[in-house]
C-alpha cells in the first residue's frame, strides 16, 4: 500500500508540474516572436536630413516587429564604435545601422561584419555600406518641389532621377535582418528612380511626393 501511495503522489506532482508548464507556455503570447533588435545611429540635430530615412527605418521595424536601439551622436570615434558593437551584441541585436556617419565619424577603416553604413560619401570607410549608385543625370531627394514635378509633367524638363532615401532606409534594415544568420552583410546600391512624364501620369509614385 505504501509503495503505491508514494507512486500516486509523485504522479500527481508530475501532472501539476506539466499543467504549470503548459499554462506558462500559453500565457506568454509572444513566445513565437523572439525579441528582434537592431541598433541605429543618427547624427544629432539633423532631423531634416534623416527624416525620410528615419521613416523608412521605422516602417520596416513596424512591419517586422523589430525593436530599435536608437542613438544620436555628435561625434563617434573608432573606440566608441567598438564599444557600441560590443554592447549591442550583448543586447542580442542583429546588427548596427549607421545613418550618415559622415556627420559624426572620421574617415578610416572600420571593419565589422554586421555594421551597415547608410552614407553618401563614406562608402570606402566601411566594409558594408548602403548608398545610391551613381547616375550621370541630375538627382534629387525627397521632398520634391511641386514646380519641378509640374515642369516634368508638362514636358518642359528632362526626366529627373529620384534618390529614394525612404527606400534606402527600409532596405538597409531589411539587409541587417536578412543576414542575421550569415556571417556578414552585403552592400546595397540603390538605383535612383527615373521620374518622367509617364511615371507622373500613371500616378503610382504619387505617395512619394506627398508631403
Amino acid at each position, binding site marked *: 500500500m505504501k509503495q*503505491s501511495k508514494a*507512486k*500516486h503522489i509523485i*504522479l500527481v506532482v508530475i*501532472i501539476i508540474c*506539466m*499543467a504549470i508548464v*503548459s499554462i506558462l*507556455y*500559453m500565457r506568454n*503570447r509572444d513566445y*513565437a516572436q523572439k525579441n528582434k533588435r537592431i541598433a541605429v545611429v543618427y547624427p544629432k540635430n539633423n532631423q531634416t536630413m534623416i527624416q525620410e530615412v528615419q*521613416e*523608412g527605418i521605422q*516602417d520596416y521595424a*513596424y*512591419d*517586422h516587429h523589430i525593436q530599435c536601439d536608437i542613438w544620436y551622436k555628435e561625434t563617434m570615434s573608432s573606440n566608441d564604435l567598438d564599444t557600441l558593437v560590443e554592447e549591442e551584441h550583448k543586447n542580442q541585436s542583429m546588427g548596427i545601422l549607421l545613418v550618415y556617419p559622415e556627420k559624426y565619424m572620421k574617415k578610416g577603416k572600420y571593419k565589422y561584419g554586421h555594421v551597415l553604413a547608410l552614407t553618401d560619401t563614406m562608402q570606402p570607410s566601411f566594409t558594408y555600406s548602403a548608398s545610391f549608385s551613381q547616375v550621370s543625370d541630375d538627382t534629387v531627394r525627397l*521632398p*520634391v518641389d*511641386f*514646380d519641378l*514635378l*509640374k515642369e516634368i509633367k508638362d514636358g518642359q524638363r528632362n526626366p529627373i532621377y529620384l534618390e*529614394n532615401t*525612404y*527606400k534606402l532606409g*527600409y*532596405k538597409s534594415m531589411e539587409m541587417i535582418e536578412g543576414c542575421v544568420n550569415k556571417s556578414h552583410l552585403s552592400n546595397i546600391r540603390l538605383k535612383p528612380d527615373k521620374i518622367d512624364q509617364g511615371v507622373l501620369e500613371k*500616378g*503610382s*509614385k*504619387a*505617395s*512619394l*511626393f*506627398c*508631403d
Partner: protein
Amino acid sequence: MKNKKLSVRVILPVVMSVSIAACIITSMMLFSYLFSSYFEKDAVEKVDRQISSLTQSIEKEISSVNNLVNEIYYQDIKKYDCDNAEFKTIMKQQLSNESDRINSISLYDMDGNAVWSFGDAKNISVSSKSWFKNAERNIETIQYGRRRLVEPSLSGYVMDVSRYVEYIDHGYMKPGILLVEYYTEPIESILERYSNQLSAYCYLMDESNNFIYHPFELRMASGLYREKTVSAALKSNNYVIKSINHEEWLIERKQIGYTGWNIVVVNSMSNLAIENRRFHNIIWIIMLLIGAVMILLDIEVFRNFTDPVYRLLNTMEEFGRGDYETRAKEEGIGELKNLSANFNIMADQLQKQMEEIRQNEREKQKMEKKLLQSQINPHFLYNTLDSIIWMIHSEEYEGAAEMVSSLAKFFRISLSQGKDMIPLGKELEHATSYLKIQNIRFKDKFDFHVEADQKLMKYLIPKLSIQPLLENAIYHGMEGMYDDGEILISVYEEDGNIKIDVADNGLGMTEEKLEYIMHKQVVSSKRGSGIGVRNVNERIQLIYGKQYGITISSELDEGTTATIIIPKMEETDETE
C-alpha cells in the same frame, strides 16, 4: 502453465487502455475539427464586424459630401446668378467653413470654360477630364473621380467630385458642371483607425480598382510591397480564404454604396493558426496526460484484483505439488479475500482428513502388528505343551493326541498363511480347536456346542475374532461352574448380516465388568491370544465400519452372550 497471451493480467488492462486511448483520440479529433472551424468562423465574424463598421463610416462621409455638394447646388447655385456679389461672398464663406474638407469649388460650362472658381483650382481645359465627361453623361448623380495630389503644396490628396448643374447666367439657365476638390483626408482617417499592420490591414479601391487609400502606399511606391489580394477580393462574393506565399489570408470585400468603391479587409490567418496550433498542443498534452493517468490508474486497480488471484493460483499450485503447509494470504478486495479464506479452510480440512487417514492407517498397522504378534502366543503354547507332557506322563495318550492335533490346527489357522480374513468355516474350526484344548485342560469343566448355518461358512471374517470371546467366556463365565458350564456358538444370518453368538451360562458380569472388557487394552495374556474383546471390536469396525462389531449382553447368574455382527463378505482378491 500460463498461456501468456491469454493471461487475464494482460488482457484486461490492455483492453481498458486501448478503449481509453480510442476514446481520447476520437474526442481529440472531434474537438480539433470543431475547434478549427469555430476559430475560423470567429475570425470571419470579427472581420465582418470590422468591415461593416468601416463601411458605415465611409458611407456616412460620402453622404455628407453629397449633402455638401447638393447644398452648394440647391441653396446657392440655383438661387443666385453667378455674377451676383452676394453669391460670391457666400461661396467664399462656404469654402472657408469647409476648408478642411474642400480645396476648391469651381463651375464650368459645357465647353469646359470656368464660369467661376474659388480656392486653389486650376483653370486649364477640363472638357477632356474624366470627371467632366462622367458628370456630363450621368446628370442625376454625383461623380467621384480619381484622387491625385493636392497642388501645389503636395500636402495630401484630393478627389474630383463633380455633378451636372444648371446655373443662372445673366438670367439664363445654363447647363454646367460643378467641380468640388474634396480632400480625401476624412476617409483616410476613418481607414487609419483600423491600425493597419502587415498581418491585418484594410484598403479602399475606386471603381477602376485604383487605390483611394492603402496603408502601405509609400512602400508600394518604393517597390517594397505589392498588394496581391486585389484579384481574390474582387472575385469573392463575401469573403475568401486564400493561400498566398504559403500563408493563409482571410480577404473580405464590401462594396460602398453610391460610389461603387470597394473596401477590402485582409487578415492573416497564420497568427490564428499559431494560436490554434498552440491551443491544440496544450489540449493534446493535457488529454494525453489524462489518458496516461487513467491507464496507470486502471492498471493499478487491476493489480489489486489480479494480484490476489495470482497469488492464490501460486499457492494452489504449491499445494498441489505437495506443500500442504502453504496457506493463501487472506488479502484482497471483497470476495477475493473470501476466496483465499475459503481455500485455506479447504486446505485445513484436507490436511485434517489426511491426518485422520494417516492416523487410521497407523492404528491399523499397529493392530495388524499386534495381530501378527498374537498369532503366536508363547504362553498358551507352553501351557498346552505342558498339559500334553502331563497327559503323556499320565499315559492319557488319547487325550494327548487330541490335544496335539487341536494345537496344530489352532496354530495353523492362527497363521492362515498370513491372511487377515479367513472363511467363517475355518474360524469356527479355530474356535473349536481352542475349545477342545481348553476343555481337556479344564477336565471337561464345560460343554460346548456349535450351531452354524452352513450357508454362511464361505463368508469371510477377520481371523482370531471368535477366540477372544471364548477366552472371556471361559475365564469369566466358567468360573465357579462345576460340570454344568455350557458354551454355545451360534452362527446365523440376520438382516442380511452374519451374527455369531458366543453364549455361556456363567455368572454373568456387571456393567462395569462389561465396560472393562469392551475397552480393556490387552497387551498379552497367558490365557489365549492376548487380544482383547476391544481389539476384535476395533478390528471389525475398522474393516467393516462402525455399524458392525461386538455387543455383549449379560445377566448376572444367568450368563453372558457376546455377539459379533459382520456383513457378508465373499472371498475375493481384494481382501488382503
